[in-house]
C-alpha cells in the first residue's frame, strides 16, 4: 500500500501546488537553447511496484541547439538457439543532424566531426521524415475537448499540466480495450524540437512531453525530458562540424 501511495505521490504534490502552478505556467516562457533530450519508455512492474525500462526500449539521448537537433537510431541484434536468446547487442546504426528551421536532414554513420555523410534529405510533402522523426507530422494523441484536466504536477523540477481521457484501442485479435490516457505538457518553454503531439503543441504553444497509458494490467508511459545545459567538448566539436556542413551544403529539392 505504501508503495502504491508513493507511485501516485506526484498527484498529491500537484494538489498542493495546483493554484500556484496554474498561474505560473503562463507567466513566462523560457526559450530552449542548448541541451539534451532523454527519450524514454517506462513500463509499470506490478511485482516491483515501480516503473522499469522495458526490454529493447532503452533510453535515447539526443542533442539540441536552437533549431538544430542531433538524434540517433538504435539497432538491436539478437541471436536465438532453439527458441532461447543466446546474445543481444544494441548499437547506434546512424545519427541524424537536423536543421529544423530549413527542414534539412543529414544522416551520419558515426558521432564524429569527421564522420562520413550517409545521405541528406528533406521531409516528404506530409512532413514525414526518414527513420520516423516526428517533428512536423500530425501525430495527434489528445483532444483537449474530450479530456478532463488533472491537477498540475512537478517533474524534473518543472511544472507539468495534465489532461486525462479515455480511448478504445483495438488489439491484434480485434478486441477493443478501453484505456486511460494522461497527457503531460509544459507551457513554460518554447521552441521545443520534440513533442509527443505536434497538433496540440501548435494549437496551445505547449509541448506534450509525457503520455501515459493505463489499461487493465498494462501501465506505461513515453517521456521526453528536456535537460538544458552545455555540451561536452566532444559534442560541441561534432555539433559545430555538422552545423557548418549543413550551412555549406543545403539540401536541394
Amino acid at each position: 500500500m505504501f508503495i502504491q501511495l508513493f507511485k501516485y505521490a506526484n498527484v498529491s504534490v500537484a494538489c498542493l501546488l495546483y493554484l500556484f502552478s496554474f498561474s505560473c505556467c503562463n507567466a513566462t516562457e523560457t526559450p530552449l537553447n542548448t541541451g539534451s533530450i532523454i527519450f524514454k519508455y517506462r513500463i509499470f512492474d506490478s511485482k516491483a511496484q515501480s516503473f522499469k525500462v522495458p526490454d529493447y526500449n532503452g533510453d535515447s539521448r539526443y542533442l539540441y541547439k536552437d533549431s538544430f537537433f542531433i538524434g540517433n537510431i538504435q539497432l538491436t541484434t539478437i541471436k536465438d538457439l532453439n527458441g532461447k536468446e543466446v546474445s543481444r547487442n544494441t548499437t547506434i546504426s546512424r545519427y541524424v543532424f537536423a536543421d529544423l528551421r530549413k527542414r534539412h536532414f543529414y544522416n551520419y554513420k558515426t558521432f564524429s566531426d569527421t564522420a562520413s555523410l550517409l545521405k541528406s534529405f528533406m521531409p516528404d510533402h506530409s512532413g514525414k521524415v526518414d527513420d520516423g522523426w516526428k517533428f512536423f507530422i500530425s501525430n495527434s494523441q489528445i483532444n483537449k475537448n474530450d479530456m478532463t484536466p488533472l491537477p498540475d504536477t512537478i517533474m524534473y523540477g518543472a511544472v507539468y499540466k495534465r489532461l486525462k481521457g479515455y480511448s478504445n484501442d483495438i488489439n491484434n485479435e480485434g478486441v477493443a480495450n478501453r484505456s486511460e490516457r494522461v497527457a503531460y505538457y509544459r507551457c513554460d518553454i518554447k521552441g521545443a524540437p520534440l513533442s509527443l503531439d505536434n497538433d496540440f503543441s501548435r494549437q496551445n504553444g505547449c509541448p506534450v512531453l509525457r503520455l501515459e497509458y493505463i489499461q487493465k494490467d498494462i501501465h506505461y508511459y513515453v517521456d521526453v525530458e528536456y535537460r538544458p545545459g552545455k555540451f561536452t567538448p566532444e559534442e560541441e566539436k561534432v555539433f559545430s562540424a555538422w552545423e557548418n556542413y549543413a550551412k555549406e551544403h543545403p539540401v536541394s529539392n
Partner: protein
Amino acid sequence: MSERIQALQENLDFSKARYEHRNAQEKFAVIPVKEAFKSQNNRDKNPFNYLVVALDAQPALTKGNLIQYIPDRERMPAPQNTFAKIYNYGKLDCSGKFTILSVADDFQFELTFEKGGLKTFSEKRSKQKGNSGGRTTSCTDWYYQTWAVWSDGSMELISETYAFTTCDDDCWLAKTINGRTFRVECSGGGGGGNILYEIIEELAARPGDFIVGTGSIWYVKAYVSMTGRKVNGIPRFTGISYSSSTIFQGAGVNAVWTKTNATTEYSYSTASCAVQGKVVFEQGPDAELSRIGTWQANNVFQ
C-alpha cells in the same frame, strides 16, 4: 594400415569382381572377399563378404564398405545388382540379412530383407550417462536398436538392447558384443567413416517461431517452416523458409512493423532465419531490429 584392412586387402577376389550401376554417374565395384578372411562380425553365420566401393564418373572412389550377406535359405551369393538395388530402394532378388561394416571391420548397421523388401534396420544409438562413482569422465551407454521399416518408408522402433558403455578414456577401443564389433569415435561419432547405404525417412514440415524484438508493451514475432528427413535414423534439415512476421502490441502503442529483409540458410544439423526490419512508433523515432533464430535438427525433429 590396420591389420584388419590389410587382411581384407589380401583376400579380395578380383577374379569375381563386378560392377553394378546405381545411376548414370555412379557405379559400385563389388569385390567378393575370400573365405580366408574372417570378419569379427557374424563369425558363426558363415556370411558372404563383399567389399563394395562407390565410384563416380571419373571414376574415383567416393566411399566404401565391407558388406556381409547372410541368405535366408539356400546359401547362394548375392545376385547381380543386389547392392545397386539396395541403394536405389529397389526390390531385391533375394532375402536375408546385410550387415554393413566399415573397411576396418566395425559394425555400422544392418538391414534385413524379406521377399526382396526391406523389413528392418538396426544400428547402435547412444544415450548420454551422467558422471557416477566419483569418476570425472563422462560415459555413454550404447544400445542396439532395431527398427521396422514400413512400406511407406516410415520406421518404428521394435527392439532396443543395451550393448556396452564407453567413457572418455576408452571410447576408441573396439568392443565385440553378440557377434558384432563396435567402435566409437572419441568425438562421439559412430566410427568407420563413409556409409554406403542410407535409409531415408521423410519428415513432416515443422513450424518454428521466434521473437524478433519486444518492448514489453509490443513484440514482433516471425514464423518459419522447416523441412527435414531422417537418414539412418538421424534427423537432417532439407530446408527452411520464412513465412511471415507480425507485431503484437498493447493499448495505445499503435506501432507498425515493417520487415526489410528475411534470409534463411541450413546445413544438415542447423537451420537459421535472419529477419531485419523496423518498428515505426506513433511517438519517437523508429527502432531497428535484427534477429537470427537458429534451430538444431535434433531439437526440431525429435
